[in-house]
């Protein structure tokens, strides 16, 4: 189920939140958690019924392994069990996500002809397996407590974060489940939640999806785009991925707050970063935290000398790249980010001396080019697009690209105001420039929602209602059926 669907907004969300608080009201806390877990399974089942089994099995196995870890006293045995647990998780993620990629590359390398399985990727598998790996590691370290199975299941499957993060830790969530004060409906947290949800919904449905249209246009015309068009499409993707993902996380946090549960922030205005090191402290923060705590530190982090540090960084970013998807584009994307990170460290002092505007521009440009690689269907295509863009040969912008930025409701309103309509007719692609500049403005100037000191006021209420309505009525368009020859 998607957050941006009628079913979710009108039915699923109100039902699950009210059910949770009603059960808690009667002090049936276990039942409330059970309700939460069951609703989460339902949420997951809506996409693919069979994969609910996978989620269930994954939770059961990891719970079993954790129980085993709690029983075993001997250090060596504990390590063996932990190792097999991690292997099991990595194995399942490998099978579902990378098997075809692996077979495909194997075939190319050795000229073999093994059949691809065409496995459909279970939604969110990368998130819930990583989350459970961290749980196993913490259990081995003796950091998990006497959680019961329902608590564990509710924590892993908690639907706001199930399919796209943030990657939460047990120590962040389960204590909140247990906190009696949080069992009761909290007016302020709830209204903050709705506000945050509305903003997230708006970021996803109105902003990201508008840029998404331009990106879709770009990727269906890769051979024909001019240099300037590629640049615009690249920028559009940079904004699309940010507003899409951070909008999703805002919605997740908003829903969490409706349940009176705080989820960790995942973004901190990443496009304001002035270096790649800073970028990764601000982008997908819970992934960075996971990689740091569960891969970088165990590898020795920065304590084993410079060279090892750099190697460790490269390993972490290689894994990060692979985690994002089974394609060489992601691998190279990860390695490039790792390399930039290393260079950033080596030349830290000289970099610090540069003007901030220069630092920002370089960082932003680098991130943009990397997103181009990230979005490309294969490395060849990315290189082709990059070359075509840098050639700076052609600067026309097609009508279709400009038109993908038109929001029909805005156009309708502009039509009503004569001077605006005149301006629109005179300036070619005005909506496009407005969207690009507007998005840049938001990324660079607006405060993070988490930093806002939320107070429920009439203004906020109206803003919430406005954003919510605008987004909801944009869920379904009218699909145009272009059958040219009828």
């Amino acid at each position, binding site marked *: 189920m998607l957050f941006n669907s009628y079913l979710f907004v009108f039915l699923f969300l109100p039902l699950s939140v009210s059910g949770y608080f009603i059960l808690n009201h009667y002090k049936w806390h276990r039942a409330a958690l059970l309700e939460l877990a069951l609703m989460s399974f339902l949420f997951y089942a809506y996409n693919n019924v069979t994969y609910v089994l996978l989620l269930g099995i994954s939770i059961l196995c990891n719970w079993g392994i954790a129980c085993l870890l709690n029983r075993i006293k001997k250090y060596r045995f504990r390590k063996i069990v932990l190792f097999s647990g991690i292997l099991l998780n990595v194995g399942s993620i490998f099978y579902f996500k990378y098997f075809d990629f692996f077979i495909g590359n194997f075939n190319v390398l050795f000229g073999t002809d093994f059949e691809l399985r065409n496995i459909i990727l279970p939604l969110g598998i990368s998130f819930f397996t990583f989350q459970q790996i961290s749980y196993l590691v913490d259990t081995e370290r003796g950091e998990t407590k006497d959680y019961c199975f329902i608590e564990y299941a509710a924590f892993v499957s908690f639907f706001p974060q199930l399919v796209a993060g943030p990657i939460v830790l047990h120590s962040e969530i389960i204590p909140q489940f247990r906190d009696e004060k949080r069992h009761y409906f909290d007016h302020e947290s709830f209204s903050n939640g709705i506000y945050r949800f509305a903003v997230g919904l708006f970021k996803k449905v109105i902003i990201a999806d508008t840029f998404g249209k331009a990106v879709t246009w770009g990727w269906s015309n890769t051979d024909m785009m001019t240099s300037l068009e590629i640049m615009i499409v690249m920028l559009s993707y940079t904004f699309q991925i940010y507003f899409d993902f951070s909008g999703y996380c805002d919605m997740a946090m908003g829903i969490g707050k409706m349940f009176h549960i705080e989820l960790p922030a995942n973004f901190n205005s990443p496009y304001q970063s002035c270096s790649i090191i800073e970028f990764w402290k601000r982008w997908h923060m819970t992934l960075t935290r996971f990689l740091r705590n569960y891969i970088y530190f165990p590898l020795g982090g920065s304590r084993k000398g410079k060279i090892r540090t750099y190697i460790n960084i490269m390993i972490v970013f290689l894994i990060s790249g692979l985690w994002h998807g089974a394609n060489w584009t992601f691998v190279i994307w990860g390695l490039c980010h790792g390399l930039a990170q290393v260079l950033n460290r080596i030349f830290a002092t000289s970099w610090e001396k540069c003007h901030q505007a220069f630092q920002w521009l370089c960082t932003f440009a680098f991130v943009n080019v990397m997103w181009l690689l990230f979005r490309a269907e294969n490395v060849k295509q990315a290189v082709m697009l990059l070359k075509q863009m840098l050639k700076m040969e052609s600067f026309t912008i097609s009508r279709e690209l400009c038109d993908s930025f038109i929001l029909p409701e805005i156009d309708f309103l502009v039509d009503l105001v004569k001077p605006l309509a005149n301006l629109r007719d005179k300036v070619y692609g005005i909506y496009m420039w407005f969207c690009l500049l507007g998005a840049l403005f938001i990324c660079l100037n607006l405060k993070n929602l988490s930093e806002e000191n939320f107070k429920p006021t009439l203004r906020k209420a109206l803003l919430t209602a406005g954003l919510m309505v605008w987004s909801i009525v944009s869920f*379904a368009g009218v699909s145009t059926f*272009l059958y040219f020859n*009828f």
Partner: protein
Amino acid sequence: MLALFALTIAVIDPFFHYHAPLEGYAYSWLIADERYQNNGIVRNFTYDAVITGTSMTENFKASEVNDLFHVKAVKVPFSGAGYKEINDNLAVALGSNPDIRLVVWGLDLNSLAADKDAPFHGIADQGFRYPWYLIDENPFNDAEYLFNKTILLKGLEILKEPSKDNEIVFDEEYSWYGWNVFGKEAVLADYRRQDGKADFQREMTDEERKMTLENVKQNVSATVKENPDVEFYCFIPPYSICWWDNAERNGLINYYIEAMQTAMKELMKYENVRLFAFWNDYEMICDLNNYKDYVHYSEEVNSGILRRMAEEDESYLITENNYREYLKEIREFYTHYDYDSIFDYETTGE
């Protein structure tokens, strides 16, 4: 706010989901909206005759049908549809309106030999999201209609210029003759002749014959049988000689004629069906000036079809007694036609 939004849409109802159109307002009749509107039209309009089929029926004028058959017709065509889609809508019409006396039904030859559940061709690969929420009977998914800004904007457009002239008659509605160029030049500019030619004109396989029959049985006969009091005027739309050229190039002349034969044999069984086929109107078919591309004919051809059906013109009415002879004759004609002559002479000044 949301309630007001939904209410506005429900009152204007651009796709006639809840009620017939408000009188005097200019509703939009984009061909692209047929799939959104046709279900509402058959459920909520007042009528006793239906014109349906593919784009080959879009240029019919309901007023002509009304005059010739003394009925009040609605036109609900589906561009590029397969048999199932058209029939499903017709079934809704017949199920919800007991007054229906007449159905004018275009049965296309190019989608006849197809799987009985084949979707409308050309749609699936274009990412078209079929508006099931308007078609199924689940009231909850109406949310997609009522909370939809595109539909609200459509509705507001409709409110703009109310006038008495905005009466809906289904003449111009859904038609495309007004904005297309007809003529030999246009047809030949659009038609890409296949280079090579098949070695022989192949027959249908048993499998294909079975598939065709199942298609007709499920998507035509069943409806005909269930509604014995309704007259079904079915016809096979006459595509241009270029279409036959393409069939010949692909070795499919016999194949198509057999498909037709299968359909004819099945449909002749029913007393309430009048089946017409216009493939023997050679003069019209071979004159590309009647077409805009290799299949689509002009509105004059539509008028001619209606007239001949109303007159029950025996040259085109298919019966138990004449269908063998009819098929033999057209097979003869299209097998031996000099297709190269289409492209032979100068096209300028045509």
